[in-house]
């Protein structure tokens, strides 16, 4: 059972049971939808961005513990951060979710904190797409918010 404990770390289950920043933001906050067509998971990311800072972020959606916990941790990590920092965190997270060599495009000093708990997902390749769903939707949302 050691493997599963690696996947379902306590901090992940905590974010799953008690998601942070769950809910919607009214316009003019942007709303970006993401889905995982293979498993049917759906997510919406609401972003309030001004002066190059993510003032607020919320999410709604349905999905497995990994996708929901990852989205919750993501919102906690990027709220109040500058767009540059948010992008660096997202890049770092996506590096964490890959078994490939890092290309050094994200500064090594970006700290992910609790989010590191998700690295157990890498051992379950089919679950990686669950973990990155919220993050990819965030990156799309940032592009929309800045457009």
């Amino acid at each position: 059972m050691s493997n599963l404990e690696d996947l379902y770390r306590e901090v992940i289950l905590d974010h799953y049971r008690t998601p942070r920043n769950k809910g919607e933001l009214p316009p003019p906050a942007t709303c970006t939808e993401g889905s995982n067509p293979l498993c049917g998971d759906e997510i919406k990311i609401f972003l309030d961005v001004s002066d190059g800072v993510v003032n607020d972020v919320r999410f709604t959606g349905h999905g497995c513990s990994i996708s929901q916990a990852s989205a919750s941790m993501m919102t906690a990590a990027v709220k109040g951060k500058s767009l540059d920092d948010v992008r660096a965190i997202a890049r770092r997270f996506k590096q964490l979710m890959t078994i490939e060599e890092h290309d050094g495009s994200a500064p090594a000093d970006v700290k992910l904190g609790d989010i590191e708990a998700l690295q157990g997902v890498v051992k379950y390749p089919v679950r990686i797409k669950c973990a990155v769903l919220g993050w990819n939707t965030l990156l799309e949302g940032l592009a929309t918010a800045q457009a």
Partner: protein
Amino acid sequence: MSLDIAALRKEFPMLQRQVGGKPIHYLDSANSSHKPNCVIDTMSQFMREGYAPIGRSSYTLASEASTTYEAARAKVAHFINARSPREVVFTKNATESLNLAAQSWGRANLGKGDVVVLTHMEHHANIVPWQMLAAEKSLEIRWVPLTADFQLDLTSLDSILRGAKVFAFTSMSNVLGTINPVRELCDAAHRAGAIAVVDGCQSVPHMTTDVQAWGADMLAFSSHKMCGPTGVGVFWAPEAMLDSMPPFLGGGGMISDVRLDSFTCAELPAKFEAGTPPIVEVIGLGAAVDFLSGIGMSEVRRHEIELTNYAYRALKDRYGDDITIHGATNPELRGATFSFAFRGVHPHDVSQVLDQHNVYVRAGHHCAKPLMRLIGANATARASMYLYSDENDVDALVDALDDVSSIF
């Protein structure tokens, strides 16, 4: 006399696989089935000793290979009670067979405003080909709804079918296991003047198929769900129907003559088999049909009813209202496939924990998103059994679900 499942299981090498030193419990047969030795050996032996291209060359081995290939077609025809092997067309899979129905018959016979009727429990393979044609030809698609317990709601079937040209439906739901009254549905289609297209993927492997008793106009199914190899599917239609249909894919093998400005089609069923077919796979399917026929489809069905009954009771006895099994409760009305929701845990998390116990179920939307929306879920966990499944597999599922509770 009931089947000797222990002996039967020995015929399936994959069922002997162990993972982490423990046996596996394969409960994903609605997705794809495992293969018995006779299929593996037939294909291997053919490739070692009998392989040659079919249909074209006249040397001895090519002629032998053609005979073996056509013998497999005859076996499949007999298995579904077709009138003649000429009614059996080999495709890549059931999805291609349904695309053939839509693109060949549909393109030739449907026009603006014509109506195609589908049901809310169809697999995407029996939805999207019709939607593609509908977009091109401005067809109307109507839907047969479901009752609260996920049976087809037939109360207004005749009015839904009024004026329709096609009624395409599954003989058994791949999500719910619901068995549909195929004969009754074919009759209703014909009363309305529509053709009846049957997606037989889930029922053909599990129970007797009789296209003549059904009165169907077309049938599609896959080899890989019925102990045969991947890469081959079947499209069946009566000869007169096939004769009236234009070819689907063009190329070698499907013509009798080609000139610079025209071509003429080959006789049936070659007309629908362009290019080199999956020769080895078709011959493997023939062996799978022999295997199933040797057991007897009524025996397969009897075993699956008993096992479904056992599984339903075992899950309900242990978990009561904590488990919701979608669909019919009467095993006579369903196949050995059931989707379930467990204590609000997401199906991916359920299947991940079950995997740790070598219990293999599928989690997801099962290529039936319209049905999933009716169920009110983005995904379900689905356990599906076959002739080689046994009570140990069910017990393993029931026990492993306990661990899901302990984590979530």
